[in-house]
């Protein structure tokens, strides 16, 4: 990045890269210096983490019953049983 400090406007673009541990070492230092002094950006990155874990906790839609029936039929046939 080539800069000597990070502003809030820059940090919000780097939050996922930071959480992934994918930032260059010099940038990690700048980000962490910024987070020490900026509670607002700490809040932002915490919200990005909370968002990611909320997304992970969403229950997924079930496949249509008919689809499941067809697939189980194919599975049973493969294993030598009539569906």
């Amino acid at each position: 990045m080539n800069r000597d400090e990070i502003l809030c406007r820059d940090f919000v673009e780097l939050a996922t890269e930071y959480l992934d541990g994918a930032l260059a070492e010099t940038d990690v230092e700048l980000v962490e210096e910024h987070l020490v002094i900026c509670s607002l950006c700490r809040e932002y990155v915490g919200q990005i983490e909370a968002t990611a874990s909320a997304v992970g906790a969403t229950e997924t839609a079930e496949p249509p019953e008919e689809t499941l029936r067809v697939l189980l039929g194919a599975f049973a046939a493969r294993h030598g049983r009539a569906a």
Partner: protein
Amino acid sequence: MTTELPPPTTRFPESEDRLVAALRAGDEQAFATLVRRYHASLKRVARAYVSTDAVAEEVVQETWLAVVAGIERFEQRATLKTWLFHILTNKAKTRGVRERRTVPFASLAGADDEPAVSPERFQRAGDAWPGHWATPPRPWEDPERRLQSLEARERLREAIAALPAAQQAVLTLRDVEGLEADEVCALLDLSPGNQRVILHRARAKVRDALEQWFEEEAA
């Protein structure tokens, strides 16, 4: 014709070895559990490559049939999950090409210059602290508990469904399925930088939706 469907409460065998062994042995409950567990995520990823939900559903069905045919040859060099998504993306790519939908994946992700946070929320040149927050995020109290409410989960689902298809695909693989960044790059032919930009855009938009919900709740 009237196959009894195993009950939806069937749990995964604790270890993947046991699950794979059960599948190889023809355990229908294990297969039904696997289909129920991954069907929606597979469809979301397929949707990034093909033009309609119906075609995505077909691609997912083809994937399951390939799993049925191929489970005996599955060597467990990758996890079962990675193997599933590998079959899916191959089939979806082939289908996308046949549909002449050859737009590069990354360009489906949304404009690259789209910022994670609206520029209006930062101070401008001439303000006291240019580049610092003007309208900062307000603290979320106890988000884990509050995001469990029915309404919050509904808002979350809507926010995810409103994302561009490529963002949904990356968000699903990373945050729903918990794949590593490099696995997602390999599956979707993305550079590490592109993968992170797409993921971050997706998370930032979903965060915006949740922020709005928290604000309405507090009002």
